[in-house]
């Protein structure tokens, strides 16, 4: 009799333990799926996007839906898995989609020589905003679209998502500004 009662106790205990474990497992699954398919936050480092993102301490929110739907266009800031090291992700700005003709300064610090290239099918051209300190498509060529991981939605400079800066979807005007800057620079040259 005592044995049976003990067994029942153990059974209910085991059931509760399994239930709790399942709950935790489900929570981690939800976390993984949200992080991989919906939205994730990343701490960025490095000077390559300087005026837009700081060297250190910026947290960006990255949404992953529009890359899956193929809705990434010129002007969007994206995170890309680095083509020369799959363990690293880099933050860059898309400047050209497949079929676009992109012209860029080969070595902006030392010479004004420019080069033009047509982005091949299925690739994008990414470049950092800080052309003087950025390893980007000028160095490793156009990047396959499959390496684009997500689109940067907003950044915050202070920890609990304060000082938000939204990066709007229509960044075409910014591209226009960059383009006009380029043309004025060329006129000065």
């Amino acid at each position: 009799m005592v044995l049976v009662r003990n067994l029942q106790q153990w059974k209910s205990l085991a059931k509760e333990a399994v239930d709790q474990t399942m709950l935790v497992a489900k929570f981690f699954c939800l976390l993984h799926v949200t992080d991989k398919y919906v939205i994730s936050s990343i701490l960025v480092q490095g000077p390559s996007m300087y005026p837009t993102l700081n060297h250190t301490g910026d947290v960006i929110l990255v949404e992953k839906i529009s890359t899956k739907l193929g809705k990434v266009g010129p002007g969007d800031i994206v995170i890309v898995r680095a083509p020369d090291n799959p363990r690293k992700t880099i933050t860059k700005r898309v400047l050209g989609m497949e079929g676009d003709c992109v012209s860029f300064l080969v070595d902006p610090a030392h010479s004004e020589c420019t080069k033009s290239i047509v982005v091949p099918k299925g690739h994008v051209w990414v470049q950092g905003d800080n052309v003087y300190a950025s390893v980007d498509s000028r160095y490793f060529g156009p990047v396959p679209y499959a390496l684009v991981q997500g689109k940067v939605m907003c950044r915050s400079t202070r920890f609990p998502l304060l000082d938000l800066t939204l990066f709007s979807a229509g960044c075409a005007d910014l591209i226009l500004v960059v383009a006009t800057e380029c043309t004025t620079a060329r006129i000065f040259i």
Partner: protein
Amino acid sequence: MGSRFLWDVTKKVFTGGLIGLTISDRYGSFEAVRGLSMHPTLNPSPNTFLGLLTDDRVLVTKFCLEKYKFAHGDIVVFRSPSNYKEKEVKRIIGLPGDLINMPNAYDTLMIPEGHCWVEGDNSSSSLDSRSFGPRTCTMPSYVKKSFKSCTSMVIS
């Protein structure tokens, strides 16, 4: 009563989907192989009409993605560099640092960091090779999104 039942079913489907997605992302999944580019190894019977029934299913394990460790001869699944919606199955021939003979020129190419050279087992008649050129081995020279996932086991 009906709405309660509906809610329960939705909840079950949702959690099942979450768990399934996580497992297929982190540990492994089954995928059907279409096409003949890996002909003797995968899809041994060249029957294109009954494709859906006779296609091979492969178990793709994703443990190797933690450290990106690959070996020569691994069969890998990766996203096509020219179309991100398509996946391709090929065999790794060269890893970073290897020297590869260019197929149509007397020239060697050193495979850069983070890339690898992949070829299909069936170098002649396959849909892939016809669209990419005479030999399957050349994607646009090398494949970038190759470090996506690797198969270590093939279930025919």
